[in-house]
């Protein structure tokens, strides 16, 4: 382990230290591993071993390109981008369609999403919450991924733009369309 505890360094400092000592990189990886695992579980439906492999490869990729990290960007956004791209490539190679796997009892996610799409709270019941996953699976992948990043990963527009490498205007449009489609699916299915 590094001589100094990891928690006293911020991400940028750890990046700088990792360039000369890979042990500091372990601090960075451990800081984000749980979050990234949870993110992938909501984004793709894969066995845990595949998720772990994607994260492992992403970390190795990140380490190799540490010198390319732009400090003007949040390190978390850069890392999420690498993981996102790695997951997309994995799915393309394995020709799997992206499904999601998340806990429908996750009230924070469900509640904030429901509020965002202006669905009447009175009509929302426990039964509906269980169908959120079904609705999300019916969404186009590009709509689903922005909703997950916005309402579960709690990323702002700027961060989503950096992660998905799309202009902010496009991100805003995607989120708007995603919410619109979500509401349409909800009304069509009459939950």
């Amino acid at each position, binding site marked *: 382990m590094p001589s100094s505890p990891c928690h006293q360094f911020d991400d940028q400092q750890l990046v700088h230290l*990792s*360039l000369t000592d*890979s*042990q500091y*990189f*372990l601090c960075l*990886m*451990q800081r984000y*591993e749980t979050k990234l*695992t949870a993110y992938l579980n909501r984004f793709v439906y894969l066995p845990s071993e595949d998720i*772990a*492999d994607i*994260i*492992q490869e992403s*970390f*190795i990729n990140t*380490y*190799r*390109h*540490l*010198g*390319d990290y*732009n400090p003007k960007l949040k390190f978390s956004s850069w890392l999420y981008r690498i993981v996102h791209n790695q997951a997309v490539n994995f799915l393309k190679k394995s020709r799997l369609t992206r499904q999601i796997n998340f806990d429908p009892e996750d009230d924070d996610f469900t509640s904030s999403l429901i509020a965002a799409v202006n669905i009447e709270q009175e009509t929302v019941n426990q039964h509906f919450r269980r169908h959120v996953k079904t609705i999300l699976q019916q969404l186009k992948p590009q709509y689903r991924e922005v909703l997950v990043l916005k309402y579960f990963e709690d990323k702002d527009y700027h961060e989503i*733009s950096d992660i998905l*490498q*799309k*202009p*902010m*205007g*496009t991100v805003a449009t995607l989120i708007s369309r995603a919410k619109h489609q979500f509401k349409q699916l909800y009304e069509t299915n009459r939950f």
Partner: protein
Amino acid sequence: MKPTASNRLSASQKALQSIRQRRLQPLPKWHLYLKKSLIWLVVIFFLLILSLGISLTLLGMIDNLFTPYFWFAAVAIFLFLSYFVLDQSRQAYRLETWQKVFLISLSTFIFGFILFRRGFARRFDNHLETTVPYYRHLTPLKINTWSQPQNGLISGQITQILSDTSFKLQDFTHQTWTIDYSTAVIRGRTQLVIGQEIKIIGRQTGSDSFVANEIRPWIGKKSN
């Protein structure tokens, strides 16, 4: 490293193990700068070609020197290539597609216009005409039309004023002619000064002599 409680390594620990076993290192900065520099060099090169293409398109359209279709097609191709390569740069994703296209178009149009106004397009066009055989086929030239002394059409640049009625003209094949303009009609804003490019309707009187009936500026109206 200590294994986890379930005696399996986490993704972080496995990654670190792999990094050490494979003796991986972060890519050196020069490697990354080289890649970025190459991208930008290619972008700048394509933008220069694009500007040149725009200046030559302007030459063809405004000067009515040749049909501009070839250069117009070249502009379209290099616009696409410039956009594609620019998109590989680090910050490009922050711009919308229309913003990237607008930036490329505006900067190259301005630069292309400057090249055109400076006469670079014409010089380059003449150079291509004399050095690249296929160029004539790709850009049918007005020069060909106005380089038929046997049919009473000649064009070129005035190189010497001999008298009030004659001057020396070097045509675009670099042959020098003695022009008698004593009975010629001088059209519009034609100026008979050294360096002026003109086109002449008349008749050939010798291997290097020509009598002019009408003299017009080389850069004329479209109807010319």
